[in-house]
């Protein structure tokens, strides 16, 4: 894990350690997800005889995006069966945050052939798309190759991978799963971005009003809901994929709010 993420996600790191695993902090580059992936791949090629490489997102070399998509698609299958029970219809939209894009891909994949359901992915807008300081390659990137996959990528005018900025560790990645790029290009899914402040506001609002504390990643999906509510009637059903719990982000949010423990 990137050293910066070890700091930002210290509760998750402790939880992983409690389960008996070791967590290595990576200091190279921006010390976030991209750099952790570089180091994991370097370690893997060195210890390939006794090591299995596994990744939690739909990025990286083939067949990893497919493997993670297929495993995560239990979410979308469950949504189909629950929608039948709850709405007696398919949902009108599914909204999910997209960093590498695993939770979104898991939710979207079984719906690709269900055209009445809009698929909406929300990327990390960081300080705002216009500032260039964000992690939204589908909104503001160009095709490139990173970690063995060709996909939309945040890159400079000299073909170098750009640094990313997001309050959310899980979305802080300059690339995105290649199948999301495909869904964007064929027009099956829509991708937007919300900035850090909008996500933080949504984190507070959902926690206060619903008693559900979403992860900062998930808070991006909630935040975007406000932007599209006019497009739906009260009778329509929108599903937010609550991809993670916000307990892990309490330190980050408290720090921003100026609260010390």
């Amino acid at each position, binding site marked *: 894990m990137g050293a910066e993420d070890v700091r930002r996600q210290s509760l998750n790191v402790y939880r992983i350690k409690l389960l008996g695993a070791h967590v290595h902090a990576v200091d190279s*580059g921006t010390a976030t997800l991209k750099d952790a992936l570089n180091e994991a791949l370097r370690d893997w090629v060195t210890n390939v005889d006794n090591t299995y490489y596994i990744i939690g997102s739909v990025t990286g070399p083939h067949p990893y995006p497919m493997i993670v998509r297929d495993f995560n698609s239990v979410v979308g299958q469950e949504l189909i069966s629950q929608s039948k029970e709850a709405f007696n219809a398919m949902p009108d939209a599914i909204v999910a945050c997209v960093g590498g894009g695993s939770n979104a891909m898991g939710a979207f994949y079984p719906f690709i052939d269900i055209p009445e359901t809009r698929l909406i992915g929300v990327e990390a807008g960081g300080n705002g798309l216009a500032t260039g300081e964000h992690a939204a390659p589908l909104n503001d990137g160009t095709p*490139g190759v990173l970690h*063995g996959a060709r996909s939309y990528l945040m890159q400079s005018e000299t073909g170098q991978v750009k640094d990313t900025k997001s309050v959310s560790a899980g979305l802080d990645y300059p690339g995105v799963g290649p199948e999301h790029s495909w869904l964007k290009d064929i027009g099956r899914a829509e991708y937007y971005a919300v900035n850090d402040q909008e996500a933080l506001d949504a984190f507070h609002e959902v926690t206060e009003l619903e008693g559900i504390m979403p992860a900062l990643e998930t808070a991006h999906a909630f935040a975007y809901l406000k932007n599209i509510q006019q497009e739906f009637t009260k009778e329509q059903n929108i599903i937010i994929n609550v991809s993670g719990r916000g307990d892990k982000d309490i330190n980050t949010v408290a720090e921003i709010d100026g609260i010390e423990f």
Partner: protein
Amino acid sequence: MNRIDKKLAQLKDQNKKALVAYLVAGDPDLDTTHELMHSFVKSGVNIIELGIPFTDPIAEGPIIQKAHDRALANNTSFTDALKIVKHFRETDNETPVILMGYLNTFVYFIKEVNESNEIGVDGVLVVDIPGELKLENYGLTNKDIKTISLISPTTSQDRIKSICSNSSGFIYYVTLKGVTGSAELDTSDVNTNIKKIKEHTDLPILAGFGIKTVEDVKNLASVSDGVVIGSSIVQMINDASDSKEFARIETYLNEIRDALV
């Protein structure tokens, strides 16, 4: 005739092994890279591999990673590397020059890559292109530019076949499981593996990754058509980046050259 083919044929006729040396363009600056290239040739280097700096060089160990970082800190771009080659060709029209780097920068500058033989580039080595793909698929259609590929100890027989059919110039055999500059050089399997590759190609096979000592060179030269030295030189470049006293590199390369014959 392409300079790589010509040089390797000459060496074969003279019953000599090839010495390939690697350095990163712009480490520590463009002028020094240019001077070092001439100094390499004086010290018996037959082919120069010019590294194109990239933000995420996943096949590199710490020594070469840092060299990429130093070159990027000077904003060295792909076009700067081409300027170095052009400058080098003003006084050396014989030594083959290969551009080595990562797919993203090569795809980003594919037009420039495709025309680079005009300024004196002889081949390209893209570290992270999947074995099943060809640079031709990305727009490198100029047959005067050789496409050198890596084959590792874990490459399957099927893949070796497909990589060989997509390659020209020579095959770069990776002598270890790991990244550049690793310590775990094991020459015992090299002979067997190189024989397997020879079943699929008539191209010369050069060995690289983790080769440091005169002893390493002697062992590998007996089973391959030549060796590639990278990290050891890059470390010496780093050590002398302020003083610009590179005599130690010449001494080292001379020792390696003597061990190769």
